[in-house]
């Protein structure tokens, strides 16, 4: 297996799918060069800065038999397109009674850590989770990203792939052969017995590091990566918590009405799982503030292995 960066795994997924299906085309305000070179300017278009129009155009093109990919780039820029996302893409299949399919992949980078300040450092996936009708992926490894993107491109619904910009340089093994990863199937990145850490995107790696530290302290932590936020593999999460009795959630979004709150509630509202719960749930999240520029402040806002480990210790000492 080749070692491929997260960024490259994404590009490879797109290129392989575009080779397979001539109906796929790509819109973004700057065109990704390798794709332009291979597929030409008609299938890989550099567009005006008009994300609202691009997002809507994907809907119309999808209903005409195409399979558009729109890269919003930073999720920040998706907010100018929010009407097309919430009021149109998410609802159009449903409100027209399922008449037509809208196979669309939207991509957006999330996260922080780049000293890019408030407007360019956001992880608002939970806002999109609240909107019925979208599917949402959030990969943590090159392998997962590639497989999830391929599934997304082949899906007949609007799918948003959120991708942590902290992960883009990260390398990982990716097989040469075609593969896909089903939506709604969590991946246990590390097995454990004492506590379940549900971790999202980059925090999977921080959680794994924390689990290592905890192992040295004699604590066995399970690290579970949902991989898709919608559908969410609540069965796997609940099964893990029924086994360990404890839940910590690591997310670099803020906690308030976040994915972390949803995951916590999926556990605490399930009678069988609740019965197994030995301690309060714990969110290890970004502080609920916009992201500041200066490094010391920015680093203070985000969770990390240290805070995850501390969160685990807290629930263990309950």
């Amino acid at each position, binding site marked *: 297996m080749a070692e491929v960066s997260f960024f490259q795994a994404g590009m490879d997924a797109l290129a392989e799918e575009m080779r397979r299906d001539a109906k796929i*085309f790509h819109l973004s305000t700057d065109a990704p060069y390798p794709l332009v070179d291979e597929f030409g300017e*008609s299938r890989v278009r550099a*567009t*005006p800065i*008009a994300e*609202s*129009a*691009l*997002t*809507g*155009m*994907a*809907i*119309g*093109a*999808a*209903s*005409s*038999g*195409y399979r*558009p990919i729109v890269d919003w780039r930073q999720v920040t820029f998706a907010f100018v397109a929010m*009407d*097309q996302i919430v*009021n*149109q893409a998410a609802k*159009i*299949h*449903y*409100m*027209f*009674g*399922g*008449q*037509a*399919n*809208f*196979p669309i992949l939207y991509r957006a980078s999330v996260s922080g850590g780049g000293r890019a300040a408030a407007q360019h450092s956001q992880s608002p996936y939970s806002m999109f989770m609240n909107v*019925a*009708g979208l*599917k949402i992926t959030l990969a943590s490894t090159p392998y997962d990203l590639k497989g999830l993107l391929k599934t997304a491109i082949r899906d*007949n*619904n609007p799918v948003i792939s959120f991708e942590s910009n902290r992960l883009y340089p990260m390398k990982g093994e990716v097989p040469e052969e075609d593969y896909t990863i089903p939506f709604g199937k969590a991946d246990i990145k590390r097995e454990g017995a004492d506590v379940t850490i549900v971790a999202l995107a980059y925090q999977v790696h921080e959680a794994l590091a924390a689990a290592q530290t905890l192992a040295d302290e004699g604590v066995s932590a399970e690290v579970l990566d949902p991989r898709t936020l919608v559908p969410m593999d609540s069965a796997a999460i609940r099964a893990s918590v029924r086994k360990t009795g404890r839940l910590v959630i690591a997310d670099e979004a803020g906690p308030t009405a976040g994915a972390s709150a949803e995951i916590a509630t999926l556990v605490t509202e399930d009678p069988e799982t609740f019965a197994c719960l030995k301690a309060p749930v714990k969110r290890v999240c970004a502080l609920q503030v916009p992201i500041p520029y200066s490094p010391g402040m920015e680093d203070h806002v985000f969770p990390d292995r240290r805070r995850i480990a501390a969160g685990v210790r807290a629930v263990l000492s309950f």
Partner: protein
Amino acid sequence: MAPSPQMQRDMLRQMQTIRRFEERASDDYHAGDIYGVVHCYIGEEAVAVGVCAALTNEDKIIGTHRGHGHCIAKGADLKRMMAELYGREAGYCKGKGGSMHIADFSIGMLGANGIVAGGIPIVTGAGLAAQMDGQGRVAVSFFGDGASNAGPFHESLNIAAKWKLPMLYVCENNLHSAQTPASQTLSVEDIAARAHGYGIPGVIVDGNDVLAVHEVALEAVARARAGDGPTLIECKTYRWRAHTERPNQPDSRSEEEIAKWMKKDPIARLVDHLKTQQGQFSDAEWEAMDAEILQSIEAAVTFSKASPFPAPEAALADLYAD
């Protein structure tokens, strides 16, 4: 070249069908058989009909919240439309959409749309698809004067112009958006003037003259099919009724203005025109046509009433495509 007498009659039939459909929809709404919000197109029929008569079944359109006219002009089935208003299983959207969300993708009607200007990017995407298909198809965006002040209008026209998409942007300038007159919100007299900003033709047409609308539409469609890009067409028209059919709706417009425009009735005008074309159309023919239309609408209502309401649990279906 003026359309053939037969084609003119077809246009008349469609216009009158829109009107009769909405008169009935309004009655049945007030009777409690139709729910939610109903926006009537009455008075503006010449726009949708004149434009859609220039299209084929393969061409695409998108409508607005005031969408019955666009559906009927594009050839939608009255039965399934009415059943949708009635909230029945046999409706176009199985009762999920209602008046503001009727679509028939099989005839290129990509839907009424409840968000002002929201449909413009979507149908522009259909125009891009048409261009990529290379089959000479076109796509048409219908929208109001109010929508022409919204961001998606601008973004879409710029892209369509730059990429020479086979598009018609048809503005139904009825001089008002809800309770607010266009004179208070539009910085230009003529919306067509905005075409300058995209380097495309901007055409003004009497939106109550279906033949005039049809003529400019034909020209714009030819332009689009030839690969010369989009046209912005401003149709000056008027809605006869309040913004919605909700009882006790305010209506900020003056009675004189409404009366003035009712005198410009696009249907009476075409009837007159057909009659003055010696021997083309008699009172009896017109009455017979209207009777047929009323019958088809009665049939649509009968059909709707015979269709069951969807099961409550059907609310859970259609969230995702397979």
